[in-house]
């Protein structure tokens, strides 16, 4: 039995991130949207407006928390205070899963607040998988790791990135948040074929897909979440959906955030592509 089936991971449809410029519109008008993703840390606070806003969001929409600061690949001990706050949030939201990134974000002496890639090797797989198991035990709900965009490669890497993702997920028995734009960005920056990545991911573990826009900096591509999803990324998305079936999908737009209608239209585009792709490949939907 696949991971999604075993944990009864639902297909939430296509959603968007819950971001400040849209708070008033979303909470006031309650526009149609399949689901929302929140940045966990923004709501791991004492109270006030953030918590009030999230409470109102929950009245209408499914909400899934997505973290950026777990630093699962770090070498300093997992932050107990962080995990306690995350658990409290998860207990309140009761989401079908929660997620963070396959990366590291700091050392004992500094938090870089970035999603730094990890060396791709067997030792790192073991290191990360052990920590994922602790996090999953602590949270008590399905937990997924997202592949990150990367701009550097380590001397200590001896396997492709997709192997690191797959091995960690298998060994830790966790889910994958598959960011198709990140695949494109890393493939461009490191010069590999993104299709190999898409085809190598253990699709039964993919609980969610991210789509986003990026910025071409000339010599490399930066994952900025500041634009429309590019055509090449839509094509990779269709390829991923063909393999994975109906997986919850989310449009990330975090910088130069457009009007609600523009964001909503981008979600509608994903919804339509997903529908059309699954209609062409009916076998995919049945796959767990």
């Amino acid at each position, binding site marked *: 039995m696949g991971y999604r089936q075993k944990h009864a991971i639902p297909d939430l449809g296509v959603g968007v991130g819950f971001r400040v410029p849209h708070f008033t519109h979303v909470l006031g008008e309650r526009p149609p949207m399949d689901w929302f993703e929140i940045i966990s840390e923004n709501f791991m606070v004492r109270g006030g407006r953030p918590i009030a806003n999230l409470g109102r969001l929950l009245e209408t929409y499914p909400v899934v928390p997505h973290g950026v600061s777990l630093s699962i690949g770090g070498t300093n001990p997992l932050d107990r205070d962080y995990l306690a706050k995350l658990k409290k949030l998860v207990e309140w939201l009761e989401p079908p899963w929660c997620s963070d990134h396959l990366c590291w974000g700091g050392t004992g002496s500094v938090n870089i607040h970035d999603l730094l890639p990890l060396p791709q090797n067997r030792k790192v797989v073991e290191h990360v998988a052990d920590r994922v198991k602790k996090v999953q035990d602590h949270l008590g709900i399905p937990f997924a790791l997202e592949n990150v965009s990367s701009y550097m*490669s380590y001397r200590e890497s001896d396997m492709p990135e997709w192997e690191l993702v797959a091995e960690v997920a298998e060994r830790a028995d966790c889910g994958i948040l598959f960011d198709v734009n990140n695949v494109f960005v890393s493939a461009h920056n490191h010069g590999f074929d993104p299709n190999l990545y898409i085809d190598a991911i253990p699709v039964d573990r993919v609980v969610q897909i991210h789509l986003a826009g990026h910025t071409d900096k000339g010599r490399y591509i930066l994952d900025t979440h500041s634009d429309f999803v590019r055509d090449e990324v839509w094509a990779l998305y269709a390829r991923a959906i063909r393999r994975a079936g109906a997986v919850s999908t989310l449009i990330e737009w975090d910088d130069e955030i457009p009007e609600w209608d523009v964001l909503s239209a981008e979600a509608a585009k994903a919804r339509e592509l997903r529908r059309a792709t699954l209609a062409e490949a009916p076998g995919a939907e049945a796959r767990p």
Partner: protein
Amino acid sequence: MKNLSEIQAFVARSVQRRDPLPPDPAAAREAELALVGNARLSAVEMLDVYREQFFLRHVGALREDFPALEHMLGDAGFDDAACAYLAAIPPRDFSLRDLGARLPGFLREAAPWSADPRHADLARFEWAYVDAWDAPDAPPLDPAKIAAMPEDGWARARVVFHPSLTLLDLCIPAHRYRAAVRAGEPVEPPSLERTMCAVYMGHETLECAELEPGAYALVTRLARGVPLGAACEEAVAETRAEPAAFEAEIGGWFQGWTQRGWVVDLT
């Protein structure tokens, strides 16, 4: 470099350097020990992508939280202060929300900013807004509590204030300056002028109220848990007010605080 913690310590150290790494031959050599360049970027250029992002992200977050301070220091001046702060007190908390918590103290201690008390006070004022935004909630005072208070109970009563309330005794009218900056109005940095005020979460928005010296002297004592009777005596002594005149003001002040939702309990 083989060991994961050694590699991470190296990367963490490198991304915190303010100047671009590629022009530094030593940095380029060191980067080669941990990273492998490709046709697009050399090892040190890869590292520099993260270094650049480190400053964009953290200085950007500080800019968002301290708009009036940025206005006072100017673009480049704010960059200098923010970078010096990040170097002296590297970010430790998991959330960027807490990044600026120690900036007021830094500006008070560190040259050249320490020479002008307006810097630290403006930062202290702006930080109160960050703190008020996600302060725990508390329902307003139940009017029945006031009704139930016996006449002779007031002197021993303690007032509990809303957790979002920060009381500030500043050397500048920071509230007027920040409001003008945020409204995009042309405004000069304020001159020294002692200003007492309170920042708090209003009904839906963050608010600031200026306080007269007597009210400030009283409310700060009450907020420290001093019972009403003793707090009044101390406030009268400090402000050298005429006791009867001071006492005549208290009812009005208290009503104002309650209306703004500052008072959440009487014990």
